[in-house]
Structure formats: C-alpha cells, structure tokens
C-alpha cells in the first residue's frame, strides 16, 4: 500500500519523511512492547504503536523499521522527530485506535508479520 493511500484511509498526519517517495507498506506489526518489536525477523514492516517516546524510534532503528504510525492520537515529541529524521524514517500519527487502524489496513491488503 502506498503511503498517501494509507494516510487517506487512516486520516493520518505526516510528521516527518517523504510520503510520496517512501516505499510501499507490505506488512505491518502492532505493539506497544518494544521487546516484541526486537524479536521480528520480517524485513522492515510498518510499526503501529501507541507508545510515543524516544525508545520507540530507537527500537525501530535497531529493528530496521523505516515506517512508523503512532495510533490513539499519540503525538511525536521533538526528540523523536529529530531521531526519525536522522534515520530517514517516515513518521505518521492517526487518531484511530490500534484495533481500528489494524482492521482498516488488513481489509485493504496489508499483511500481518505472522
């Protein structure tokens, strides 16, 4: 799924990154537990999370995740945005819950990691 369509479906706001030229999303994983994110073997899924702190971005960096979506109307902090920009990540925010976000993406063809 291309990022502009994802943003439209989820009423998402672009925080940083290039939505037009960012790679499409094939797989997604939803978690507020960064330890779970670090166990993933899938190459670069979309991370859907309600955890909004600097370790969300740091964990994504370590797990080679380049596309992040903050759900539940969580907002990125300035230090998160700075680190996301340093790592060429695309960071989005949606007012939708993780459940609703996941349902919409699944319904529109985004695959689960497992």
């Amino acid at each position, binding site marked *: 799924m291309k990022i502009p369509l994802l943003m439209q479906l989820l009423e998402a706001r672009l925080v940083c990154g290039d939505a037009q030229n960012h790679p499409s999303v094939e797989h997604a994983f939803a978690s*507020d*537990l*960064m*330890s*779970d*994110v*670090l*166990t993933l073997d899938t*190459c670069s899924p979309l991370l859907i999370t309600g*955890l909004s*702190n*600097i*370790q*969300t971005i*740091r*964990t994504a*960096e*370590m*797990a*080679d995740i380049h596309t992040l979506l903050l759900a539940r109307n969580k907002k990125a902090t300035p*230090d998160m945005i700075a680190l996301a920009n340093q790592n060429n990540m695309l960071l989005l925010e949606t007012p939708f819950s993780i459940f609703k976000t996941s349902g919409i993406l699944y319904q529109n063809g985004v695959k689960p990691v497992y």
Partner: protein
Amino acid sequence: MTFTYEIEGGNFSRAGSASSDIKKALKQLDLDYNIIKRVVVSIYEAEVNIVAHARRGTLTADIDADGIVVVLDDEGPGIPDIEAAMTTGFSTASPRVREMGFGAGMGLPNIKKNADSLHIQSTVGVGTRLEIAVNFK
C-alpha cells in the same frame, strides 16, 4: 576496531546511542543484513538492560574480520538467579522501564537467540558482565 562507551543507568533518552554508533560502523563493512541486525539487536537489548537496572556501565566492542565480541560491564544489583533471568517472561523491571516499552522479560532470551555465544557473570550487589559474540562467517 575497538569501540568503548560509557552507559548511564536510568537515562532512557541516551539508551541505544552506543548500539546506534556500532550499527553505523558495521554498515561500512559490507556485511550481510541479517548479521548486522543480529548484532545490533543483541547489543541494544544489553544496553537497555544496563540503563534499566544498573547505576552505570561500560560497553566495549571489538570488531575484526571474523566477527564482533561485545563486553558489557555494569555496576548494579546483579542477577541472583541467572537461569531464571534467561526464562522468557521473567522480569524485575520497574514500572518506569515498562512505560518505555521494555521489562517484559524478553531481553536476555533475545540476546541468546541472536548471538552465537552469550556468557553472563554476575555478583549480587556488585554488578553483571555480559560477553556477546557474533561470527561474521
């Protein structure tokens, strides 16, 4: 190449900065993607453990053509039962650590999964030493 970093206990705003530096160095070596990821995830888990549990620590990474050996020494509470700590789900993390998305008792098992070898020595009330090795070939 040898890299050494000081790690400050409790400072989550800096947690992972050493791992990030090492990742950048590894990417210069034209290594397989999966090897870099295994190394980086192992080191990051260990670095977060020091921030979460110890007062301070040091991380030393030695990289040569065959692989990487990372030694993490901390001054902290130590691990009374290493076997229990290696069990997925076993955790003594504080609520603050859990708020940061960690503390689910998955760190040490994940290091073991990703590393080619993991050695743990710990003295209660003194500190803990982890030695993590990943082969490049």
